[in-house]
């Protein structure tokens, strides 16, 4: 009863923990300084530590994060100032100029950048070769214009055009394939839009791979792995939920009136094709899951990060020495008829459990163990137990007779066959619990992807 209550409260606890984590993260984000400021301060610390080149690299990256021109001017001025101090005058001149270009009118930064520019030694003129025409002065592109481009037809426009072209292409193919049926038009538009949208989503990476050498950062790998994990978890959650619904909604059928297809039957499982016997205890069963473990002492090597040396330690643990899972075909008798149950591919839920400690039957395992002790757990369905089977029912003629043979087997369409001993709720709750856990994991992974996208460089920083 207590374990049922605990199990029921697990989803609620998970949701509460996630909600608390999200809430505390949101609060931290709200109170934290903006990202560019944090990076700016980090660059300053690195500079103070004497790593000048790394500090300049961080500043360059910070420039991308700057939200407005004031921030950009501040970063450009700092870059120019540090380059000036390092004696890189041409770089310093360039960055002072950038600062002057973006700094707001009348700001203190303009005055300081102008002073910095004036304090730089004049650039050395390139020596003119005798007999050559002096080069024509070309005005460099204005930085402000480069940083803040005028509205133009960018990648979004290109993506929209490609998507439209794909949409019409798919639509044309589908119209042709369906023989230009009028009533299929709406579904064809939707399917074309789905395919065109998916195709357009795949284009940016293909474009990046074609146009330039694709150098995927740790962020990219992590986001990709999380996306795949998220999609996988959500897909399996959906499947688990669907199967749960199927099992729940399948009504109980009598074998006498059963027809071909997926159904649920309850009856006595009679042995007809032999029995399995457990290795420990010699328990006869139609289904057997036996696991034997021995308590052992092991010496392990491990790396001690404090002393930076490999060390050894002794550990005690249970190690599996024997494991066996199998079921045999049996005959189900529900009082109205008999059917052969082919258990290949079936999922079993036995109710009977036998425990053995040092090959002696016990009611529960002791808390303390000695080296060399063996514990065995046998889960099984005994012969003539009452079982519920969800499976595909079919019948075929017995050769040479007028009788039909009834059989229950794995359903390939629903990808499901369950043999249950005991309460049906066990099957439903296991499906619901698995589905919920997978769904939560999928959502968390999707949030992780979002987090990486909103915080570029977070994985690399964490790895550092």
């Amino acid at each position: 009863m207590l374990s049922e209550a605990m199990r029921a409260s697990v989803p609620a606890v998970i949701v509460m923990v996630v909600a608390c984590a999200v809430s505390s993260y949101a609060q931290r984000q709200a109170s934290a300084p903006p990202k560019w400021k944090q990076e700016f301060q980090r660059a300053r610390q690195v500079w103070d530590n004497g790593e000048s080149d790394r500090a300049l690299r961080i500043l360059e990256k910070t420039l991308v994060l700057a939200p407005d021109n004031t921030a950009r001017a501040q970063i450009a001025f700092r870059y120019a100032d540090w380059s000036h101090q390092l004696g890189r005058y041409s770089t310093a001149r360039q960055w002072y100029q950038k600062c002057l270009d973006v700094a707001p009118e009348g700001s203190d930064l303009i005055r300081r950048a102008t002073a910095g520019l004036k304090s730089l030694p004049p650039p050395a003129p390139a020596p003119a070769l005798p007999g050559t025409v002096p080069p024509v002065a070309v005005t460099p592109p204005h930085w402000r214009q480069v940083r803040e481009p005028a509205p133009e037809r960018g990648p979004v426009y290109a993506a929209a055009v490609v998507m439209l072209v794909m949409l019409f292409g798919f639509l044309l193919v589908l119209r042709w394939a369906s023989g230009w049926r009028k009533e299929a038009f709406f579904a064809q538009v939707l399917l074309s839009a789905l395919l065109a949208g998916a195709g357009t989503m795949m284009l940016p990476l293909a474009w990046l791979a074609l146009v330039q050498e694709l150098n995927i950062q740790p962020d990219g790998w992590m986001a990709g792995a999380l996306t795949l994990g998220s999609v996988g978890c959500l897909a399996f959650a959906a499947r688990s939920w669907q199967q749960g619904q199927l099992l729940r909604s399948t009504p109980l059928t009598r074998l006498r009136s059963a027809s071909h297809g997926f159904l649920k039957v309850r009856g006595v499982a009679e042995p007809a094709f032999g029995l399995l016997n457990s290795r420990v205890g010699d328990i006869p069963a139609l289904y057997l899951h036996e696991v034997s473990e021995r308590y052992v002492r092991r010496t392990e090597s491990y790396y001690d990060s404090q002393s930076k040396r490999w060390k050894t330690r002794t550990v005690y643990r249970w190690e599996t020495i024997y494991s066996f899972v199998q079921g045999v075909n049996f005959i189900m008798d529900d009082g109205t008829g008999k059917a052969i149950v082919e258990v290949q591919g079936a999922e079993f839920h036995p109710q009977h459990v036998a425990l053995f400690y040092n090959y002696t039957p016990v009611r529960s395992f002791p808390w303390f163990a000695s080296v060399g002790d063996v514990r065995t757990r046998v889960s099984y369905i005994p012969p003539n137990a009452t079982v519920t089977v969800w499976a595909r029912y079919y019948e075929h003629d017995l050769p040479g007779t007028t009788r039909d043979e009834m059989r229950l087997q794995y359903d390939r369409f629903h990808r499901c066959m369950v043999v249950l001993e005991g309460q049906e709720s066990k099957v439903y709750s296991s499906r619901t619990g698995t589905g919920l856990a997978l769904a939560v994991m999928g959502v968390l992974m999707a949030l992780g992807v979002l987090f990486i996208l909103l915080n570029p460089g977070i994985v690399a920083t964490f790895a550092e």
Partner: protein
Amino acid sequence: MGTVSTLAIVLFIVGGVLVIWVIAAYNTLVNLRGQAQRAWANVDVALKQRWDLIPNLVETVKGYAQHEKQVLDRIAELRAVALGAKDRKQRIQAEQEVTRLLGNIIVWGENYPALKANENFLHLQRTLADIEEQIADRRELYNEAATNYNVYQKTFPAVLVAQSVWAEEMPLFEAAPQEREVPKVQF
């Protein structure tokens, strides 16, 4: 650049999954449709065997059951309907009516003692019963395959694929309206 490539990777995976989803739905639909068509072909073979048997049966009973001419004429009409049916639904309706009428003919043996003594009639009666049993078994298999196909093509995204390309619902063998009527018993 880092953010752009990360976003591109995420979009690529999501887009790829969507495309694979649609392709998988299409392949499953083709597979289920193939199973349903194979099941129908098996039913069709048995139905043809029955049609081959019917002319002999009609010829045999014609001489004995003069008053049942209407039934025999109706079977001839239904043969034309079934063999010239444009769609499966029409064919199924015709075949079900034939099943019902043949059931009546088999019972005539009780009403016409001379017919019951006819060796040929008895042989045809036995053969017809075997074929009817085969048809019943194959009909169940067809109903299962057709139901799987019909249900799957109503799920997402298979519904888009199915509606875009075929949009056909496999008809099932169901009880005819006459068979649903409660029989009147008089003592």
